[in-house]
């Protein structure tokens, strides 16, 4: 049972750290925050497979009804898919960050927000 508590605390910390970074003003940190959240989710998925077994895929397929001593292989397949998707989205987010820097000359979210049409409209009392 100790593993469960350790994993729960680690996951909690990872999500907290990810959330903290997402709320930062620096855009690169926001991207890192999103990445950490995605990775925390992957760790969570692996945890959902349980830690009862040591053997990978061998006999007794079907997740929770599997014989003792066998890890659930499905979650690992899911995580592989999620990692590939996460890799692509992180690459895109970083490229987008660079593009934002090229267009605006800043990656400070406060300064980015000040130039937006919504902010301008609110100052005129125009936007809801």
């Amino acid at each position, binding site marked *: 049972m100790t593993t469960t508590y350790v994993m729960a605390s680690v996951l909690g910390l990872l999500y907290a750290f990810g959330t903290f970074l*997402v709320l930062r003003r620096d*855009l690169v940190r*926001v*991207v890192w925050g*999103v990445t950490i*959240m*995605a990775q*925390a*989710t*992957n760790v*969570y*998925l692996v945890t*959902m497979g349980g830690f009862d077994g040591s053997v990978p895929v061998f006999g007794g*397929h*079907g*997740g*929770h*009804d599997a014989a003792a001593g066998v890890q659930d292989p*499905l*979650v690992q397949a*899911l995580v592989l*898919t*999620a990692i590939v*998707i996460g890799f*692509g*989205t992180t690459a*895109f*987010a970083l490229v*987008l*960050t660079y*593009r*934002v820097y090229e*267009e*605006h000359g800043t990656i400070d979210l406060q300064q*980015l927000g000040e*130039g*937006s*049409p*919504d902010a301008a*409209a609110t100052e005129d009392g*125009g*936007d*809801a």
Partner: protein
Amino acid sequence: MAAPDHVVVAPLLAALATAIATLLLRPLPRAQRAVSVLGGVAYAVGVAVLYRGVVADPDGYLVYALSNWEAPFGIVVVADPLSAFMLVIAAVVGLAALVFSVGYLDPADQTLAYHPLFHLMLVGVTGAFLTGDLFNLFVWFEVMLMASYVLVVFYSGPEHTRAALHYAVLNLIGSAVMLLAVGGIYAVTGTLNMADITARLASGAADPVPVLGLSAVLFSVFALKAGIVPFQFWVPAAYRAAPAPVTAVLAGVVKKVGIYAVIRLYFTVFAAATLPVSLPFVAGESFLAFFGPVMFAMAVGSIIFGGVAAVNQPDLDGLLAYSSIGQIGFIVLPLAVAATAPDGGELMVLGVAAALVYSLNHGLAKGLLFLGAGAARRATGTTQFDDLGGLSERDPVFAGSFFLGALALIGIPPLSGFFGKFLVFDVGVRAGSTTVLGVALVGAIFTIAYFSRAWNRAFWGEPVDYEREPLLVAVVAVLAVGLLALGVGFDPVFRAAEAAAEAAVNRSGYVDAVLEVEL
């Protein structure tokens, strides 16, 4: 596996093949555009064939096991009247937007990545409508979103990068949350197959309490995709930034994927479980009784917020973007009533059917209006109301089509929008809820207000310089005629929506079709 079953994946393959072909044809821009439009037609034909197959099937379910791995071990693709109905919306709006974009975008802009991305977005949408596997749904969402991120940032100017940044970061967090919920549901139920989840929840083999919490987490992700209050804040900037045909698909089709996911997962899958604990504000034992009030609050918020904000917009794009937040509220409102109605009863079916009819009408009408805004931008160089005027004098055909689209959203007979609105009110009356009627009435008045303003500012008044774009106007006009035709020949549309709604609440039919076991 018999050959006709392959028809289930036909639209998917058509869009995917076109995406690859247009990627390879980049050195030949003309051929690329031709193949892209032909691919759009092939997609529509694939959807039509699939629709016929679903209607012809005695049970109305076409199940296709990928790589011939039987459910629940492999991933199944399930076409039922509900998926088929949504696919028709995707095919019509997608094809119109595709033809429009050939005339709208600069040819050099189209060459690099536009057409492959557009078709990949369709692939994601189609997969999400068809899949019968929860994790697979996540994957299709990602396919759709990846393409849409790039399409939103397509012009990559200051506004576009900022909008795409909001859109991408929000949806990346949304994806992480969705994966979290999917993983949790797998851990609790031990399966990812939607039919299998339904069966296990119904038989009590899975503990419903964690599933309720996880499904609530999942609901927030679908609400984010559908852009309903309080998850609406990405909508206006993203819709302003994306090229007009992409916005038409985002508003007309991609948002509906969120709605479809809510109908499929909450009305078909999670409703199978009963609540073992009593919660405040929840009357009834079904999961739906829990989500009904939540949906209702979101719908009311969307209708009011979208309406109030749309009235005040300085430009046509912004007005339509906020309007689509309000209109999605009109789709969720009957769903909320349906969720609190007796399970599988007449009112539940009618509520879901009303939401579907409204989705169809909104997909076509809002697609038309966004394309119309694009045509106005191309013809006059702007969509700011201050710089527009007199378009009705410059181009009566365009103005008339835009007017029909606006009337369809307001809900004037004999356009299809009348029946959409009428069904929403009908659901309210049958539920005996004056709140629902009141909210719908307020929303309807707002709709009239902001479209009157758009019409006054852009189409009447002092005429501005206008350069006619025949192809763009033709696409808008065809959609307008389609709206009229749907309204005049509404009976088959309603029967299709009703069949789709019945399929959505028919849990035993779904489980039986996929797993071949009795629920």
